[in-house]
């Protein structure tokens, strides 16, 4: 069901939905912030892949869509009016199809080893060290508080060389930097 919805999102920015489908989907987008965020991501990936990113990028366009939708009497609007409103949204998306592919590939890279898949040998080391499962961040994990940033920056300089990759986290997270405790 979710997958179908995501495919419809892609079709929306590709301007490939008929008027009735557009109307239905836009109502769903208007009521679902996660869908709006997904729409923004599709657009972002598309732009990034095509090198169309401006020096500064406003990714809040989905909120604009939301605001526009709120102004619309969505339930009673005729399909043709929706179709008119969809155009600017679609215009923002150069090729959502690419974006969707990128999302799919980002989420599935682990399964597409180009040749043989390595087999993990059983751990030859003692297993009694860990006290918790490590598969996913445990419940209660939260974003780093401000005072942690000084530690993180300092720690990055001791990591093995993968270029600026460790700093990608600092830049990629909406965070504060504060040298005070």
């Amino acid at each position, binding site marked *: 069901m979710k997958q179908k919805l995501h495919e419809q999102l892609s079709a929306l920015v590709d301007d490939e939905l008929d008027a009735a489908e557009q109307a239905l989907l836009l109502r769903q987008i208007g009521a679902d912030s996660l869908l709006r965020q997904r729409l923004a991501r599709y657009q*972002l990936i598309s732009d*990034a892949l095509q090198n169309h990113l401006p020096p500064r990028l406003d990714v809040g366009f989905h909120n604009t869509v939301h605001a526009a939708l709120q102004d619309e009497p969505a339930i009673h609007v005729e399909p043709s009016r929706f179709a008119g409103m969809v155009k600017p949204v679609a215009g923002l998306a150069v090729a959502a199809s690419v974006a969707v592919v990128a999302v799919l590939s980002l989420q599935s890279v682990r399964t597409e080893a180009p040749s043989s898949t390595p087999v993990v040998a059983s751990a030859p080391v003692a*297993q009694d060290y860990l006290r918790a499962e490590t598969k996913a961040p445990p419940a209660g994990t939260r974003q780093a508080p401000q005072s942690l940033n*000084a530690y993180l920056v300092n720690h990055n*300089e001791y*990591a093995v060389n993968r270029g600026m990759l460790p700093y990608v986290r600092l830049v990629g997270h909406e965070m504060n*930097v504060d040298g005070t405790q």
Partner: protein
Amino acid sequence: MARSKIVKWLLLASLVVVAPVSLQASFAEADAPPGSARQWLDNMSRSLQSLDYDGTFVYYHDGKLEAMRIVHQASAAGEKERLMSLTGSAREVLRDDKAVTCIMPDNKSVMVGQSRPRQPFPDVPEDLDSLSPYYQLQDVGEDRVAGLMTRVIDITPRDNYRYGYRFWIDTTNFMLLKFELSAVDGTPIEQVMFTGLRVGDQIPAAALEPSLTGEGYNWFRQGGGGGDPAATQGQPDWSVKQLPAGFRMTDYRRKRLHHGGEQAEHMVFSDGLATVSVYVEKLAANSKAFTGLSNMGAMNAYGAVLDEHQVTVVGEVPAATVQSMAQLVSKRSP
């Protein structure tokens, strides 16, 4: 949605992705064609450090996607790098051989830390055997990224104490075009993929200048103006009673990390790939302690308070690893 449509997407993507990536091989003097996974990693590490490049990439984590740009210049004078966000707040990190400057418009602050010479990758190149009980290094063949041929190198952890890595390395210039960090069960945690990259072009000086001056911002400088000293002599006052298998202490320093704060004891532990820092710092009277788990992508941190000291363990390792280490910190007997 019809399957044929997905196929159409794939075809479209393969065409579009190729277009923006403009690469100019400039690594003609590279070593002989590498033959092992290890050599690919060594070459990648060297390329990241020694080539001039300007690229745009996407960073995927926790279901979110960010676009960033990186500019890197290597010259006789040293390395200069600039990393900036293209989405959201205009966060930037600038790094050269002396300092790391983080400009965060979110709260109008700038933090300046001291940079250190880059550690080779892996950290113990002459001692590969010491890694093998904990990781499996494997060349898993070739793959195309953005229309370019890459060699894919996997580093798979053999236990839950550490993460796995997969690198897509350009076969002509050894640049890293795609990177994935995953849990031991293969679940991706972070991914980075270049969408446009120029290698070897001259980097204009302006491209390495910050877009923000930091004027009117609060500035925080680590180290209190002093240089990052050589490894501190003697034994640290604190220790981790039991380490995850394969980890050993590789560095120990005392340093001031927070403006006006006490000197922190900093112990660095590594298994040759993953690095974990343990900081122990006297809690200031009016400061708020950091306790529990926190994360920034795959970077996990755990805070605890022990004998009026703030213990903070930070590392690109699973949450349970930093948590266990933090809980095993204790003061050495005099």
